[in-house]
């Protein structure tokens, strides 16, 4: 008899719903991508293909503003992701490789805390805090706020990878007269590299994409790419917004794909 009827994994209607799901997820993005190539200035009519809006993004009137915003976003992301990765690596070593210590379970809650608190609450609290201690809102406040919420995202792949490395390698290293620092540097760190890289990429993209917290703590003088886009959208969606959106979209996808493959690379080498 046809295994179709007997396949206990099949539920009629689930497949169409899955396709619907995919459609719902991709349609808005694809539409934006298509329209970003629209020659017409009107966003409702489709004229012909053109790279006009991309040209405007890079060379047009608003280009400097977006360029500065991009520069800010990228540099902030680099600093935040690097700091978060270092802190997360140390934290993972503490949680997974240092036995018991006082405050260990509290530490686990702490690392997850940024994920539990709603973004807007974090944004408000950070704004209030910097104001209360008189720390002027600007580039630095953004960086500090970003490091906080990047830590759990970097921690995820790093801890997962570390968990998968048996500790016999480190024992063997110590058996062969390596100090603990040498063991960490020569054995654990190299074996962890895919996880650390993966964590860095994840943290980078999270920082790059952040809007709400950045918007609250940035003050008036600094713009990041998301806040610049938001500001422009408030005045109405113009085609160059769609061009920028498409670019940002592609960057995100590339980064996450990289992060995924980097993480997988480590698995194959073991």
């Amino acid at each position, binding site marked *: 008899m046809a295994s179709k009827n007997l396949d206990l994994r099949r539920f009629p209607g689930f497949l169409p719903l899955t396709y619907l799901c995919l459609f719902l997820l991709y349609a808005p993005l694809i539409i934006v991508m298509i329209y970003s190539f629209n020659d017409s200035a009107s966003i409702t009519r489709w004229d012909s293909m053109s790279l006009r809006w991309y040209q405007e993004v890079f060379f047009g009137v608003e280009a400097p503003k977006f360029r500065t915003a991009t520069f800010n976003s990228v540099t902030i992301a680099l600093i935040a992701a690097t700091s978060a990765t270092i802190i997360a690596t140390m934290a993972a070593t503490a949680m997974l490789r240092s036995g018991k210590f006082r405050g260990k379970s509290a530490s686990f809650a702490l690392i997850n805390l940024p994920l539990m608190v709603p973004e807007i609450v974090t944004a408000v609290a950070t704004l209030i805090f910097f104001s209360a201690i008189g720390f002027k809102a600007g580039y630095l406040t953004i960086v500090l706020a970003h490091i906080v919420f990047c830590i759990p995202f970097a921690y995820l792949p790093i801890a997962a990878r570390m968990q998968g490395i048996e500790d016999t390698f480190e024992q063997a290293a110590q058996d*062969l007269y390596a100090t603990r620092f040498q063991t960490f540097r020569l*054995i654990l760190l190299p074996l962890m590299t895919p996880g650390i890289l993966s964590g860095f990429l994840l943290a980078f993209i999270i920082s790059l994409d952040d809007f709400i917290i950045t918007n609250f703590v940035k003050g008036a003088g600094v713009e990041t790419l998301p806040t610049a886009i938001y500001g422009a959208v408030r005045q109405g969606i113009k085609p160059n917004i769609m061009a920028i959106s498409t670019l940002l979209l592609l960057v995100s996808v590339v980064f996450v794909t990289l992060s995924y493959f980097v993480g997988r690379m480590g698995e194959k080498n073991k």
Partner: protein
Amino acid sequence: MPENDNIAVDIQNVTKMYGAFTALKDVNLDIRDNEFFTLLGPSGCGKTTLLRSIAGFEDITKGAIVLYGQNIANLLPNQRPVNTVFQQYALFPHMNVTQNVMFGLLRLGQDKATAKARVGEVLELVQLTAFADRMPSQLSGGQQQRVALARALAPSPKVLLLDEPLSALDLKLRQAVRLELQQIQQQTGITFVFVTHDQEEALTMSDRIAVIEGGQVQQVGSAREIYEAPKNKFVADFIGETNLLDVNVTDLAGGKGSCILPSGAQITCPAADGAHAGPGHLSVRPERIAITTAGGGLVQGNASRHIYLGTDVHVEVTLTDGEKVTVRMQNSTQIQIPEVGQAVGLEFEADAARLLVD
């Protein structure tokens, strides 16, 4: 074979507790210089814990571990001049064979040239010179094991610890490697402390064996001593096969004692050191018992089962008092194997038996 009485590792009153659980109870052992010493016992008996305590991966609760006169119990693993061959080899996956073997030497401060020369020596010893540039993932199980051995030998440790290194190999390979390990030990003169649960391995490779159970040393001796003169029921039962008859031990004197067999016959045979009068066991190995005519011999019974093992047949005989005795008979055309149900007598030399208490 140890030529001197230098003690390489002196385990003194070592106790190890995990919370309420005692893994090692007051262990005392002398391991001699240039000896191939084996820790043998069933899983969970504490032999690996003891080995790891010598290496430094376990802290001991009480006692001392004296290595050539120096107590190393409080030193970190990287401060102890002993090296370990791990059960799963633990070769560093991101380094090739040469880098793996060189690792300990570099940590000890040797310069690269000297270290590389030593690596060459050691790889030749384990016959892996051609594989010097391979990565561990490109090696077979047997080759990985030899790299692990080379890596542990390169720093010329005073004692080499081997944690069941052959358990992951298949049978034929295991037998070949056993021989090689013995040869390497003799060539290098390094004291080997070897952990295994496999008796055959222990009996064939070791100068001396410590039988361990329940965190305690049951007996220490050469293969022959342990097999022929087991000190208690556990050792007699764990090493090889034996028959244990419940008897009452009397008249202990001069290393011998008397007991009454189920047939009523009385015999005098060697007694283990700790034997005392009262309820005990008579241990006789299956290969020391001969089957004679019904009604004859020291005890009588009926053949109740055959176990066919190819070269041997083990005949199970149920005695008059219900106890079961296994007799080993050679499976040859000249030897008549009793039928099941047939009445038989069992004969053995008094000196081949042994009186034991638990």
